[in-house]
């Protein structure tokens, strides 16, 4: 079966110690190919943990992860990365600062590039330049510039390009615009939508902006205490307003969703 299936994922951190923390509590989710799902939830709800489970950053206590028909539950993280792109809040995490923009892209492209002796070659370079040109940030003329010299927003845009350059089956975005100023965040978000639409990549995006979560994509899930407590799509979601969403959450989770980091508008 195509798409992503999460079957009964459970993860306890520091199991067997007084600090044991059940971070994922039987999470199951079926994601159809081409779906764009926004993920909401208060701090510590387990959103990033869910992503890390899919990325293979740790072993699960229980459960299976199936991507495009392949069981990847026991694959090491770098093998999964062949088909999964990811982006974090911190723009510094996705790029190598002391290497040039071109080298960064070439490294990310190793996944799909044809074999060549030198990592940077003329054919790939032309392709990278075209990709950069379409970012519309003027980076195509700075391919030999070190990544570390770019601004946070530029680096995040470049990271986005790197995460999607090898046409992944799945893209995971963990608050990837949260550290950027509003104008830059807007720009990176627009870019994200364009790339996802163009390549029809299956995508999960964590955000704290509820309005944004309901407007973007095709489906929204809300997490709480390691569980998915709300899952809306289609007509139902199209009509849903933020206050209604908060009300539904209160019914399901038995408490309020809003936290200081949540943007209501």
């Amino acid at each position, binding site marked *: 079966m195509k798409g992503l299936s999460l079957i009964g994922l459970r993860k306890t951190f520091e199991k067997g110690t007084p600090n044991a923390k059940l971070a994922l509590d039987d999470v199951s989710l079926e994601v159809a190919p081409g779906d764009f799902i926004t993920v909401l939830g208060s701090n510590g709800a387990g959103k990033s943990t869910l992503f890390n489970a899919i990325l293979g950053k740790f072993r699960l206590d229980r459960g299976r992860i199936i991507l495009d028909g392949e069981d990847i539950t026991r694959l090491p993280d*770098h093998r999964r*990365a062949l088909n999964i792109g990811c982006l974090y809040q911190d723009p510094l995490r996705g790029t*190598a600062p002391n*290497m040039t923009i071109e080298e960064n892209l070439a490294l990310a492209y190793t*996944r799909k590039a044809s074999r060549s002796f030198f990592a940077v070659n003329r054919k790939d370079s032309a392709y990278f330049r075209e990709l950069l040109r379409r970012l519309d940030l003027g980076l195509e003329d700075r391919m030999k510039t070190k990544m570390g010299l770019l601004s946070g927003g530029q680096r995040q845009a470049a990271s986005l390009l790197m995460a999607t350059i090898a046409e992944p089956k799945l893209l995971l975005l963990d608050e990837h615009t949260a550290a950027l100023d509003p104008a830059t965040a807007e720009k990176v978000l627009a870019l994200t939508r364009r790339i996802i639409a163009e390549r029809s990549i299956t995508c999960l995006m964590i955000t704290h902006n509820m309005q944004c979560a309901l407007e973007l994509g095709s489906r929204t899930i809300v997490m709480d205490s390691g569980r998915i407590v709300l899952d809306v799509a289609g007509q139902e979601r199209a009509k849903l307003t933020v206050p209604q969403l908060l009300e539904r959450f209160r019914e399901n989770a038995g408490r309020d969703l809003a936290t200081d980091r949540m943007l209501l508008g």
Partner: protein
Amino acid sequence: MNILSLLVSALGQGMIYAPMALGVFIAFRVLNTPDLTIDGSFVAGMCACAVVTIAGHPYLALLCGLAVGALAGLVTGLLQTRLRINPILSGILTMTGLYTINFMALGGQSNLYLQRAAVNSAGVETQVASDTLYKAFRAFMVSLTGNRRFDNNLSILIVTGLIVAAVAAVLAVFFFTRTGMAIRATGDNEEMVRSSSIDADRSRIQGIMLSNALVGLSGALLCEQQRYADLNFGSGMLVVGLASVIIGQVFFGQRGITLGIISAVAGSLVYRIILQVAYRVDMPSYAVKLLSAVIVVVALSIPLLRKRFAERRAEREEAEP
């Protein structure tokens, strides 16, 4: 001795230690990880080279020095990645273990001369010096120039210089291949390498092996030049390498990998010239290690001192009317 011949001798020594400086450069600057294996792999390179040279294969001996260094690096790399042992401790563990192996390689002695017993025409047993790269190359230079008194130090400088040039060129190219670039990226942002679906652990191991292979080669070259291997020669080698790398940076800056390679070699040469000068003003040879340590401390503190100085000056300028 005149200045020129002193310079030639210093440059020759600098070339012999240059692969070691390159190894330190790869560990500390490219992989960004301190590696104390270096003290051990230098001696391992010496010992392997001594044994194979005495057996009559001086060229194979250099490759053995290289290979033994790479093996030492492999052990450290596995400790660091597969067992997740702290990098500094990993290096110390390998270095400590190597001491025993080196001791065994030298046949249970703390040093070994490149010679072996033979019976001469008069039926008396004597020690015959083994053939080495340097002996062979000197003979070659003598036959080439027809000068029977061709300067030995010049011959050392030329042949080692050729080897180092070849090594540096191969390295400079290697770091732009896919494998080489992955090693550089692993030192820069390991997480990004993993999320590009590259096995960062493997790249790290490759980098550590490369670094220690060069250190082993350096030990092997020194062994053939000074005609003996010494179990205790490695202690402090890492600091000597660091001093070279840092001195090189002062002259060439630290921009880019190719420049980094050139400056590590240049740093090794300048370092030996500094030592030669120090010897001329009667510095005893045991003071070398203290001198190296002081050079490293001074060089490392310069950026901080410079910053403080600039801040003070800014303060004073503000205070003035």
